[in-house]
């Protein structure tokens, strides 16, 4: 946060933290076989230069452009429907992942749930949280593998994969937003005799909605990149075409496809920024 900088020059972390961090770096350096010489030595640089030379010029024949365009459209479609699906998954689950809607906070002041009901609600909350955690811990690409196995090849398993993973991410974020709303309007509604459901609809959701939209747009930006990757396991989009181009050593076509990714990602970033400014 922008604090007016009282003299707090990077409060020195304890020494052990610094030492641990250094040890972590050294350990990782060795474990990953980082080898600057291989990269920046004459041989590495030569290999990179040779590879880059092979990429140019991009293949701009009508066929390659058509292929890239249809891949880009498919990727866009996967990201859009996948993001909407994730909202559909996240919105109901986030209600379960919100303590203040289930068993504590001002909604329950004065009329707390009985001990049995409270235990059930706490269990519901724990189950909601756990579901979301499982959904988001499994990476998109693993979801894609699983869904390709279930429903076959094509963009559809990509949509499902994005929806499930992002559903877990958004559900967590939505729940945090719901817990953080300003309590004053809720109290005001309660004072007028509103039921819990009415407080949720007229007090909590209107406050949370702009944040929901903002997070969803942000995840859309993440998803367009992920959608471009799905194809590697057979889930359509630009990734599939890139996979083919790489496997068949069609380097010029590969560059065309990479340019297509760059364009579609930049487009979605700009669109999302515009919508965020407009809607939120």
């Amino acid at each position, binding site marked *: 946060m922008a604090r007016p900088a009282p003299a707090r020059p990077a409060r020195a972390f304890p020494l052990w933290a610094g030492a641990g961090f250094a040890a972590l770096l050294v350990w990782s350096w060795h474990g990953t076989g980082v080898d600057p010489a291989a990269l920046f030595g004459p041989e590495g640089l030569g290999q990179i230069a040779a590879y880059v030379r092979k990429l140019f010029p991009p293949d701009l024949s009508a066929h390659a452009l058509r292929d890239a365009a249809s891949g880009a459209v498919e990727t866009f479609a996967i990201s859009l429907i996948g993001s909407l699906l994730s909202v559909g998954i996240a919105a109901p689950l986030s209600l379960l992942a919100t303590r203040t809607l289930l068993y504590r906070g001002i909604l329950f002041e004065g009329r707390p749930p009985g001990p049995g009901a409270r235990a059930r609600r706490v269990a519901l909350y724990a189950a909601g949280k756990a579901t979301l955690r499982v959904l988001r811990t499994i990476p998109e690409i693993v979801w894609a593998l699983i869904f390709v196995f279930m429903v076959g090849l094509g963009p*559809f398993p990509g949509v499902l994969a994005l929806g499930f993973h992002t559903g877990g991410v958004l559900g967590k974020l939505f729940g945090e937003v719901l817990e953080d709303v300003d309590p004053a309007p809720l109290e005001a509604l309660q004072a007028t005799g509103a039921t819990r459901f009415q407080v949720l609809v007229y007090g909590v959701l209107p406050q949370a909605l702009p944040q929901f939209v903002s997070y969803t747009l942000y995840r859309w930006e993440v998803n367009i990149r992920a959608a471009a990757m799905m194809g590697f396991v057979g889930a359509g989009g630009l990734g599939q075409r890139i996979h083919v181009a790489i496997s068949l050593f069609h380097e010029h076509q590969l560059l065309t496809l990479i340019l297509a990714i760059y364009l579609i990602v930049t487009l979605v970033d700009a669109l999302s920024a515009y919508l965020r400014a407009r809607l939120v």
Partner: protein
Amino acid sequence: MARGPSAAPVDRFPASPSRSVFPYVFGAVLLASVVFSLREAQVDPRRFVEGEALANVARFVRGAFPPKLSRDFLGLMARPALETIQISVMGTAIAVLIGLPLGLLATSSLTWRGILHERTSRSGRWTLGFVPYALSRATLSVLRSIPEYVWAFMFVRAVGLGPFPGVLAIGVAYGGMLGKVYSEILETMSPRPLETLHAAGAGKPGVILYGLVPQALPNVVAYTLYRWECAIRASAILGFVGAGGLGQQIELSMRMFQFDEVLTLLAILFALVAGVDWISGRIRARLA
């Protein structure tokens, strides 16, 4: 936002036409894109119930339980699991090395605009300020718009298989993201301390070191830690293109239909991600 009748300041600001048309245009475009995308993405829930889908689900679930917990298998998987952590740490470190200098250059208040540059000549601002600024912004945009796995593929070509290309891929792609966010953080810092230092006669390095760095550091560190959390997931994914780590094992087991191994590997990944989240959360809590 709710717009009640009393909320609209009707007299002074006649509602601009674009503002009032926007919701309809937005709704129509969204609806059209959704309809179009549903067809384009071949969304078809029936595929879950027809053919072998259900049998496949059953096969997957039956195969996955119980997870494979034999000592041999766990011993074999320890190395890829540690490798995943190492890739994420090293990748994030390289991302900072790339993102920090480019991010500083991509900050307009540091390179060509605002308080620090009042005494610089116009041409000096252009050549020494705006040109590097624009170049680093363009570089960052290219770095972050090409997904990690495409970078990984190219680095596999350049330096061979193994974790190193994974490190480079995360470093380059995340460097682009870190650089952009660093510059955004720096741009939003309060200019007051800078002005004060400037007025007191501090030079540029002094203003940056004592005015900007202390303000920006907590946010910069917090965002870097957040990216580290993302990197652990990414490093698990990069294995799919031959860049080491857990992903490679997950793909192998999946392709061999060893679903009990897949479940164990996912559980390991789950533990790794939870551990990294916890550590990073602890550090961020201390910084805030």
